[in-house]
Protein backbone atom coordinates (compact mmCIF):
# COMPACT_ATOMS: atom_id res chain seq x y z
CA UNK A 1 0.00 0.00 0.00
CA UNK A 2 1.51 3.32 -1.06
CA UNK A 3 1.89 6.40 1.08
CA UNK A 4 -0.62 8.22 -1.11
CA UNK A 5 -3.34 5.69 -0.42
CA UNK A 6 -2.53 5.74 3.30
CA UNK A 7 -3.04 9.49 3.43
CA UNK A 8 -6.17 9.42 1.27
CA UNK A 9 -7.74 6.82 3.57
CA UNK A 10 -6.65 8.82 6.64
CA UNK A 11 -8.19 12.02 5.25
CA UNK A 12 -11.46 10.25 4.37
CA UNK A 13 -11.69 8.65 7.80
CA UNK A 14 -11.04 11.93 9.56
CA UNK A 15 -13.80 13.53 7.49
CA UNK A 16 -16.14 10.67 8.35
CA UNK A 17 -15.36 10.88 12.03
CA UNK A 18 -15.85 14.65 11.93
CA UNK A 19 -19.55 13.85 11.57
CA UNK A 20 -19.61 11.83 14.78
CA UNK A 21 -19.99 14.77 17.19
CA UNK A 22 -23.26 15.53 15.42
CA UNK A 23 -24.77 12.30 16.70
CA UNK A 24 -27.65 13.73 18.65
CA UNK A 25 -27.40 13.37 22.38
CA UNK A 26 -30.84 13.05 23.91
CA UNK A 27 -31.88 15.62 26.52
CA UNK A 28 -32.16 12.97 29.20
CA UNK A 29 -28.72 11.76 28.34
CA UNK A 30 -27.23 15.24 28.60
CA UNK A 31 -28.95 15.95 31.90
CA UNK A 32 -27.88 12.61 33.35
CA UNK A 33 -24.36 13.17 32.14
CA UNK A 34 -24.26 16.66 33.67
CA UNK A 35 -25.54 15.31 36.96
CA UNK A 36 -22.82 12.67 36.89
CA UNK A 37 -20.18 15.30 36.16
CA UNK A 38 -20.96 17.22 39.32
CA UNK A 39 -21.34 14.35 41.75
CA UNK A 40 -20.75 10.77 40.73
CA UNK A 41 -23.75 9.00 42.23
CA UNK A 42 -22.73 5.67 43.67
CA UNK A 43 -26.26 4.21 43.50
CA UNK A 44 -27.94 3.27 40.26
CA UNK A 45 -31.52 4.45 39.87
CA UNK A 46 -33.71 1.32 39.82
CA UNK A 47 -36.98 3.17 39.09
CA UNK A 48 -38.58 2.21 35.78
CA UNK A 49 -36.06 -0.60 35.26
CA UNK A 50 -36.94 -4.19 34.49
CA UNK A 51 -35.32 -7.46 33.43
CA UNK A 52 -31.55 -7.60 33.08
CA UNK A 53 -31.16 -3.84 33.69
CA UNK A 54 -32.93 -4.13 37.05
CA UNK A 55 -30.83 -7.16 38.01
CA UNK A 56 -27.58 -5.34 37.21
CA UNK A 57 -28.62 -2.10 38.93
CA UNK A 58 -29.67 -4.01 42.09
CA UNK A 59 -26.47 -6.01 42.17
CA UNK A 60 -24.48 -2.79 41.70
CA UNK A 61 -26.30 -1.11 44.57
CA UNK A 62 -26.34 -4.02 47.00
CA UNK A 63 -23.11 -5.99 46.60
CA UNK A 64 -20.19 -4.19 44.97
CA UNK A 65 -17.77 -7.12 45.42
CA UNK A 66 -20.14 -9.51 43.68
CA UNK A 67 -20.71 -6.92 40.95
CA UNK A 68 -16.93 -6.55 40.41
CA UNK A 69 -16.47 -10.32 40.32
CA UNK A 70 -19.31 -10.65 37.84
CA UNK A 71 -17.89 -7.89 35.60
CA UNK A 72 -14.43 -9.50 35.55
CA UNK A 73 -15.78 -13.00 34.91
CA UNK A 74 -18.25 -11.88 32.25
CA UNK A 75 -15.55 -9.95 30.37
CA UNK A 76 -13.19 -12.95 30.52
CA UNK A 77 -15.80 -15.50 29.41
CA UNK A 78 -17.36 -13.26 26.75
CA UNK A 79 -13.92 -12.24 25.47
CA UNK A 80 -12.84 -15.87 25.14
CA UNK A 81 -16.13 -16.94 23.55
CA UNK A 82 -16.20 -14.11 21.00
CA UNK A 83 -12.53 -14.70 20.15
CA UNK A 84 -13.31 -18.38 19.57
CA UNK A 85 -16.28 -17.63 17.30
CA UNK A 86 -14.39 -14.94 15.34
CA UNK A 87 -11.46 -17.33 14.95
CA UNK A 88 -13.79 -19.94 13.44
CA UNK A 89 -15.21 -17.39 11.01
CA UNK A 90 -11.74 -16.20 9.99
CA UNK A 91 -10.65 -19.81 9.48
CA UNK A 92 -13.66 -20.38 7.24
CA UNK A 93 -12.59 -17.32 5.24
CA UNK A 94 -9.14 -18.82 4.80
CA UNK A 95 -7.40 -16.59 7.33
CA UNK A 96 -6.04 -19.34 9.56
CA UNK A 97 -2.90 -18.58 11.57
CA UNK A 98 -0.08 -20.84 12.56
CA UNK A 99 3.46 -20.34 13.82
CA UNK A 100 5.05 -17.56 11.74
CA UNK A 101 8.64 -16.81 10.83
CA UNK A 102 9.66 -13.44 12.23
CA UNK A 103 10.67 -11.47 9.16
CA UNK A 104 11.21 -7.75 9.41
Amino acid at each position, binding site marked *: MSFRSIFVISALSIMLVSALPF*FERSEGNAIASEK*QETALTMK*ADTNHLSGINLFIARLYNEDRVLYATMVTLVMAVLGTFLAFVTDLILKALGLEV*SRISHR*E
Partner: protein
Amino acid sequence: MDIFNIYLPVAGIEFNVVLLILIGFCVGVLGGFFGVGGGWIVTPALNIFGFHMAFAIGTDLSNIFGQTIGAVKKHQKMGNIDWKLGLISIATSIVGLEIGSDVIIALEKAGDVGMIVRWCYMLLLWGLGSYMLHDYFATRPKEDDDIDRAGARTPANKSGQQKPGISERLHRITLSPMVSFPASGIDEVSIWIILLIFLFTGFLSGFLGVGGGFIIMPALVYLIGLPTAVAVGTSLVTVLFSGAYGCLTYALKGRVEIIAAMIMLIGASIGAQVGSTAVKYIKGYGIRLLFSVMIIFAGFSVATEQAYKITQNQTFQTFAGVVLMGTALSMSVIIIGKLVADARKERDKSSIIKKHH
Protein backbone atom coordinates in the same frame (compact mmCIF):
# COMPACT_ATOMS: atom_id res chain seq x y z
CA MET B 1 -29.93 7.48 15.34
CA ASP B 2 -32.21 7.31 18.39
CA ILE B 3 -33.45 3.83 17.51
CA PHE B 4 -29.98 2.51 18.34
CA ASN B 5 -29.90 4.19 21.74
CA ILE B 6 -30.04 1.98 24.81
CA TYR B 7 -30.25 2.85 28.47
CA LEU B 8 -27.17 2.00 30.52
CA PRO B 9 -28.44 1.32 34.05
CA VAL B 10 -25.22 1.82 36.02
CA ALA B 11 -23.98 4.99 34.29
CA GLY B 12 -27.55 6.26 34.11
CA ILE B 13 -27.29 7.52 30.53
CA GLU B 14 -28.46 6.56 27.06
CA PHE B 15 -25.85 5.58 24.50
CA ASN B 16 -25.74 4.59 20.86
CA VAL B 17 -25.07 0.85 20.40
CA VAL B 18 -23.59 1.27 16.90
CA LEU B 19 -21.14 3.83 18.20
CA LEU B 20 -20.10 1.51 21.03
CA ILE B 21 -19.49 -1.40 18.65
CA LEU B 22 -17.61 0.86 16.21
CA ILE B 23 -15.32 2.26 18.93
CA GLY B 24 -14.75 -1.28 20.21
CA PHE B 25 -13.97 -2.63 16.76
CA CYS B 26 -11.43 0.09 15.96
CA VAL B 27 -9.63 -0.26 19.25
CA GLY B 28 -9.70 -4.06 18.93
CA VAL B 29 -8.00 -3.95 15.53
CA LEU B 30 -5.33 -1.56 16.82
CA GLY B 31 -4.84 -3.55 20.03
CA GLY B 32 -4.34 -6.87 18.26
CA PHE B 33 -2.13 -5.37 15.59
CA PHE B 34 0.09 -3.01 17.60
CA GLY B 35 0.05 -4.69 21.02
CA VAL B 36 -1.57 -1.72 22.73
CA GLY B 37 -4.62 -1.42 24.96
CA GLY B 38 -5.99 1.64 23.18
CA GLY B 39 -7.25 3.38 26.30
CA TRP B 40 -5.96 6.68 24.92
CA ILE B 41 -8.58 6.36 22.16
CA VAL B 42 -11.55 4.82 23.98
CA THR B 43 -11.52 6.91 27.16
CA PRO B 44 -11.71 10.33 25.42
CA ALA B 45 -14.18 8.95 22.85
CA LEU B 46 -16.60 7.69 25.54
CA ASN B 47 -16.14 10.91 27.48
CA ILE B 48 -16.92 13.09 24.44
CA PHE B 49 -20.12 11.14 23.77
CA GLY B 50 -21.48 11.52 27.29
CA PHE B 51 -19.73 9.14 29.69
CA HIS B 52 -18.41 10.53 32.96
CA MET B 53 -14.61 10.32 32.86
CA ALA B 54 -14.35 7.77 35.71
CA PHE B 55 -16.90 5.51 34.00
CA ALA B 56 -15.12 5.96 30.67
CA ILE B 57 -11.81 4.76 32.16
CA GLY B 58 -13.34 1.82 34.06
CA THR B 59 -15.46 0.64 31.14
CA ASP B 60 -12.51 0.99 28.79
CA LEU B 61 -10.22 -1.09 31.04
CA SER B 62 -12.85 -3.85 31.24
CA ASN B 63 -13.10 -3.88 27.47
CA ILE B 64 -9.30 -3.98 27.13
CA PHE B 65 -9.20 -7.03 29.42
CA GLY B 66 -11.83 -8.89 27.41
CA GLN B 67 -10.44 -8.08 23.96
CA THR B 68 -6.83 -8.85 24.88
CA ILE B 69 -7.60 -12.45 25.94
CA GLY B 70 -8.35 -13.49 22.36
CA ALA B 71 -5.48 -11.44 20.94
CA VAL B 72 -2.98 -13.03 23.34
CA LYS B 73 -4.26 -16.51 22.44
CA LYS B 74 -3.80 -15.80 18.75
CA HIS B 75 -0.31 -14.32 19.16
CA GLN B 76 0.62 -17.33 21.29
CA LYS B 77 -0.42 -19.58 18.41
CA MET B 78 1.80 -17.60 16.04
CA GLY B 79 4.77 -17.89 18.42
CA ASN B 80 4.75 -14.15 19.09
CA ILE B 81 4.87 -14.21 22.89
CA ASP B 82 7.90 -14.29 25.15
CA TRP B 83 6.24 -15.07 28.48
CA LYS B 84 9.47 -14.78 30.49
CA LEU B 85 10.12 -11.26 29.23
CA GLY B 86 6.43 -10.35 29.56
CA LEU B 87 6.30 -11.38 33.23
CA ILE B 88 9.54 -9.52 34.03
CA SER B 89 8.04 -6.49 32.30
CA ILE B 90 4.90 -6.62 34.46
CA ALA B 91 6.82 -6.97 37.74
CA THR B 92 9.34 -4.22 36.97
CA SER B 93 6.87 -1.82 35.38
CA ILE B 94 4.83 -1.74 38.62
CA VAL B 95 7.86 -0.32 40.48
CA GLY B 96 8.45 2.25 37.73
CA LEU B 97 4.77 3.13 37.70
CA GLU B 98 4.83 3.87 41.43
CA ILE B 99 7.87 6.14 41.00
CA GLY B 100 6.14 7.91 38.09
CA SER B 101 2.96 8.52 40.06
CA ASP B 102 5.01 9.79 43.05
CA VAL B 103 6.68 12.33 40.76
CA ILE B 104 3.24 13.45 39.58
CA ILE B 105 2.07 13.95 43.17
CA ALA B 106 5.23 15.97 43.92
CA LEU B 107 4.67 18.11 40.81
CA GLU B 108 1.01 18.62 41.73
CA LYS B 109 2.13 20.62 44.76
CA ALA B 110 4.25 22.84 42.51
CA GLY B 111 1.49 23.86 40.08
CA ASP B 112 -0.49 22.78 37.03
CA VAL B 113 0.77 19.25 36.54
CA GLY B 114 -1.64 18.60 33.65
CA MET B 115 0.18 21.08 31.42
CA ILE B 116 3.58 19.53 32.16
CA VAL B 117 2.29 16.01 31.53
CA ARG B 118 0.71 17.00 28.21
CA TRP B 119 3.92 18.67 27.00
CA CYS B 120 5.91 15.56 27.92
CA TYR B 121 3.27 13.38 26.27
CA MET B 122 3.48 15.38 23.04
CA LEU B 123 7.28 15.27 23.04
CA LEU B 124 7.25 11.53 23.61
CA LEU B 125 4.68 10.79 20.91
CA TRP B 126 6.29 13.03 18.30
CA GLY B 127 9.84 12.05 19.26
CA LEU B 128 9.07 8.35 19.16
CA GLY B 129 6.99 8.69 15.99
CA SER B 130 9.73 10.64 14.18
CA TYR B 131 12.40 8.18 15.27
CA MET B 132 10.35 5.24 14.03
CA LEU B 133 9.63 6.99 10.72
CA HIS B 134 13.34 7.73 10.32
CA ASP B 135 14.14 4.11 11.13
CA TYR B 136 11.60 2.95 8.55
CA PHE B 137 13.08 5.03 5.73
CA ALA B 138 16.68 4.38 6.74
CA THR B 139 16.51 0.65 7.28
CA ARG B 140 13.55 -0.54 5.20
CA PRO B 141 14.67 -3.88 3.82
CA LYS B 142 14.56 -4.47 0.10
CA GLU B 143 12.43 -7.27 -1.37
CA ASP B 144 13.34 -10.74 -0.12
CA ASP B 145 15.64 -9.28 2.52
CA ASP B 146 15.28 -11.44 5.63
CA ILE B 147 16.49 -9.59 8.68
CA ASP B 148 15.35 -10.69 12.08
CA ARG B 149 16.30 -7.75 14.23
CA ALA B 150 14.57 -4.50 13.47
CA GLY B 151 15.73 -2.44 16.38
CA ALA B 152 19.23 -3.80 16.12
CA ARG B 153 19.71 -2.39 12.65
CA THR B 154 20.79 1.08 11.70
CA PRO B 155 21.67 2.39 8.25
CA ALA B 156 24.95 1.52 6.67
CA ASN B 157 27.57 4.27 6.83
CA LYS B 158 29.57 5.63 3.89
CA SER B 159 31.95 2.70 3.88
CA GLY B 160 28.98 0.37 3.61
CA GLN B 161 29.34 -1.07 7.13
CA GLN B 162 26.31 -1.50 9.35
CA LYS B 163 26.48 0.62 12.48
CA PRO B 164 25.34 -1.21 15.62
CA GLY B 165 21.82 -0.29 16.70
CA ILE B 166 20.79 0.76 20.21
CA SER B 167 19.80 -2.78 21.17
CA GLU B 168 23.09 -4.21 19.88
CA ARG B 169 25.04 -1.68 21.93
CA LEU B 170 22.98 -2.55 25.01
CA HIS B 171 23.55 -6.27 24.42
CA ARG B 172 27.31 -5.65 24.53
CA ILE B 173 27.15 -4.54 28.17
CA THR B 174 28.20 -7.63 30.10
CA LEU B 175 27.06 -6.79 33.60
CA SER B 176 26.24 -10.08 35.31
CA PRO B 177 23.92 -11.84 35.79
CA MET B 178 23.27 -12.42 32.10
CA VAL B 179 19.98 -13.90 30.95
CA SER B 180 18.73 -15.34 27.69
CA PHE B 181 15.31 -15.11 26.04
CA PRO B 182 15.15 -17.97 23.52
CA ALA B 183 11.55 -17.17 22.53
CA SER B 184 12.74 -13.74 21.37
CA GLY B 185 15.96 -15.05 19.87
CA ILE B 186 18.11 -13.21 22.43
CA ASP B 187 21.12 -15.29 23.47
CA GLU B 188 22.56 -13.14 26.20
CA VAL B 189 21.74 -9.80 27.78
CA SER B 190 22.38 -8.28 31.18
CA ILE B 191 19.33 -8.55 33.44
CA TRP B 192 20.10 -5.03 34.70
CA ILE B 193 19.55 -3.61 31.23
CA ILE B 194 16.18 -5.35 31.00
CA LEU B 195 15.14 -4.16 34.46
CA LEU B 196 16.24 -0.58 33.73
CA ILE B 197 14.28 -0.49 30.47
CA PHE B 198 11.07 -1.73 32.09
CA LEU B 199 11.60 0.56 35.07
CA PHE B 200 11.77 3.44 32.60
CA THR B 201 8.69 2.36 30.61
CA GLY B 202 6.80 1.83 33.90
CA PHE B 203 7.88 5.29 35.05
CA LEU B 204 6.54 6.83 31.84
CA SER B 205 3.24 4.96 32.28
CA GLY B 206 2.85 6.28 35.81
CA PHE B 207 3.95 9.78 34.86
CA LEU B 208 1.72 10.09 31.80
CA GLY B 209 -1.19 8.11 33.26
CA VAL B 210 -1.40 5.65 30.38
CA GLY B 211 -1.53 1.86 30.16
CA GLY B 212 1.89 1.64 28.59
CA GLY B 213 1.38 -0.65 25.59
CA PHE B 214 2.43 2.05 23.16
CA ILE B 215 5.63 2.65 25.17
CA ILE B 216 6.50 -1.02 25.77
CA MET B 217 6.11 -2.17 22.15
CA PRO B 218 8.73 0.22 20.68
CA ALA B 219 10.97 -0.29 23.72
CA LEU B 220 10.96 -4.05 23.09
CA VAL B 221 11.85 -3.49 19.43
CA TYR B 222 14.41 -0.69 19.65
CA LEU B 223 15.99 -1.20 23.07
CA ILE B 224 15.82 -4.95 23.60
CA GLY B 225 15.92 -5.94 19.92
CA LEU B 226 12.84 -8.16 19.61
CA PRO B 227 11.35 -8.89 16.20
CA THR B 228 8.30 -6.60 15.81
CA ALA B 229 5.71 -9.40 15.87
CA VAL B 230 7.16 -10.80 19.14
CA ALA B 231 7.21 -7.27 20.60
CA VAL B 232 3.50 -6.91 19.75
CA GLY B 233 2.60 -10.25 21.37
CA THR B 234 4.75 -9.72 24.46
CA SER B 235 3.44 -6.19 24.94
CA LEU B 236 -0.09 -7.63 24.91
CA VAL B 237 0.79 -9.81 27.94
CA THR B 238 1.44 -6.64 29.94
CA VAL B 239 -1.75 -5.08 28.58
CA LEU B 240 -3.74 -8.20 29.56
CA PHE B 241 -2.57 -8.08 33.17
CA SER B 242 -3.07 -4.34 33.57
CA GLY B 243 -6.50 -4.66 31.93
CA ALA B 244 -7.55 -7.45 34.32
CA TYR B 245 -6.37 -5.51 37.35
CA GLY B 246 -7.97 -2.29 36.09
CA CYS B 247 -11.26 -4.05 35.35
CA LEU B 248 -11.50 -5.50 38.85
CA THR B 249 -10.40 -2.44 40.76
CA TYR B 250 -12.62 -0.01 38.81
CA ALA B 251 -15.60 -2.37 39.14
CA LEU B 252 -15.05 -2.53 42.91
CA LYS B 253 -15.13 1.25 42.95
CA GLY B 254 -18.37 1.13 40.98
CA ARG B 255 -16.95 2.78 37.85
CA VAL B 256 -17.65 0.08 35.25
CA GLU B 257 -20.76 0.19 33.08
CA ILE B 258 -21.06 -3.53 32.35
CA ILE B 259 -23.67 -3.29 29.56
CA ALA B 260 -21.54 -0.78 27.63
CA ALA B 261 -18.40 -2.86 28.21
CA MET B 262 -20.14 -6.01 26.92
CA ILE B 263 -21.46 -4.30 23.79
CA MET B 264 -18.08 -2.71 23.09
CA LEU B 265 -16.45 -6.10 23.58
CA ILE B 266 -18.48 -7.57 20.69
CA GLY B 267 -16.78 -5.14 18.30
CA ALA B 268 -13.44 -5.28 20.11
CA SER B 269 -13.14 -9.08 20.12
CA ILE B 270 -13.81 -9.28 16.39
CA GLY B 271 -11.40 -6.38 15.82
CA ALA B 272 -8.68 -7.93 18.00
CA GLN B 273 -8.84 -11.20 16.05
CA VAL B 274 -8.63 -9.33 12.75
CA GLY B 275 -5.74 -7.17 14.01
CA SER B 276 -3.80 -10.16 15.36
CA THR B 277 -4.29 -12.08 12.13
CA ALA B 278 -2.97 -9.10 10.14
CA VAL B 279 0.38 -9.44 11.97
CA LYS B 280 0.87 -12.69 10.05
CA TYR B 281 0.64 -10.89 6.70
CA ILE B 282 2.27 -7.53 7.33
CA LYS B 283 6.03 -7.44 7.79
CA GLY B 284 7.70 -5.89 10.83
CA TYR B 285 8.70 -2.64 9.15
CA GLY B 286 5.11 -2.17 7.89
CA ILE B 287 3.79 -2.51 11.45
CA ARG B 288 6.34 0.02 12.67
CA LEU B 289 5.47 2.48 9.88
CA LEU B 290 1.75 2.41 10.73
CA PHE B 291 2.52 2.62 14.44
CA SER B 292 4.68 5.71 13.93
CA VAL B 293 1.98 7.46 11.84
CA MET B 294 -0.61 6.60 14.49
CA ILE B 295 1.33 8.02 17.43
CA ILE B 296 2.21 11.18 15.50
CA PHE B 297 -1.53 11.78 14.98
CA ALA B 298 -2.13 10.96 18.65
CA GLY B 299 0.44 13.70 19.42
CA PHE B 300 -1.65 16.16 17.38
CA SER B 301 -4.68 15.19 19.42
CA VAL B 302 -2.82 15.89 22.67
CA ALA B 303 -1.63 19.23 21.23
CA THR B 304 -5.24 20.18 20.45
CA GLU B 305 -6.29 19.17 23.95
CA GLN B 306 -3.50 21.41 25.26
CA ALA B 307 -4.82 24.28 23.12
CA TYR B 308 -8.25 23.72 24.67
CA LYS B 309 -6.82 23.91 28.19
CA ILE B 310 -5.07 27.18 27.34
CA THR B 311 -7.90 28.89 25.41
CA GLN B 312 -10.94 27.11 26.95
CA ASN B 313 -12.38 26.98 23.43
CA GLN B 314 -14.64 23.91 23.20
CA THR B 315 -13.90 23.49 19.49
CA PHE B 316 -10.37 22.38 20.29
CA GLN B 317 -11.60 19.61 22.58
CA THR B 318 -14.05 18.34 19.98
CA PHE B 319 -11.32 18.48 17.35
CA ALA B 320 -9.00 16.47 19.63
CA GLY B 321 -11.61 13.73 19.82
CA VAL B 322 -12.17 13.84 16.07
CA VAL B 323 -8.43 13.48 15.37
CA LEU B 324 -8.20 10.52 17.76
CA MET B 325 -11.21 8.69 16.38
CA GLY B 326 -10.22 9.57 12.82
CA THR B 327 -6.76 8.12 13.37
CA ALA B 328 -8.19 4.97 14.94
CA LEU B 329 -10.69 4.48 12.14
CA SER B 330 -8.24 5.15 9.31
CA MET B 331 -5.62 2.85 10.83
CA SER B 332 -8.22 0.10 11.18
CA VAL B 333 -9.26 0.53 7.54
CA ILE B 334 -5.62 0.40 6.38
CA ILE B 335 -4.86 -2.71 8.46
CA ILE B 336 -7.96 -4.56 7.24
CA GLY B 337 -7.30 -3.48 3.63
CA LYS B 338 -3.73 -4.72 3.83
CA LEU B 339 -4.84 -7.98 5.46
CA VAL B 340 -7.39 -8.67 2.73
CA ALA B 341 -4.98 -7.74 -0.09
CA ASP B 342 -2.10 -9.84 1.27
CA ALA B 343 -4.34 -12.81 2.09
CA ARG B 344 -5.66 -12.74 -1.49
CA LYS B 345 -2.13 -12.55 -2.85
CA GLU B 346 -1.12 -15.56 -0.75
CA ARG B 347 -4.17 -17.53 -1.85
CA ASP B 348 -3.48 -16.75 -5.53
CA LYS B 349 0.14 -17.77 -5.09
CA SER B 350 -0.77 -21.09 -3.51
CA SER B 351 -3.37 -21.84 -6.20
CA ILE B 352 -0.75 -21.19 -8.92
CA ILE B 353 1.65 -23.59 -7.18
CA LYS B 354 -1.12 -26.21 -6.95
CA LYS B 355 -1.88 -25.81 -10.67
CA HIS B 356 1.82 -26.21 -11.45
CA HIS B 357 1.95 -29.51 -9.60
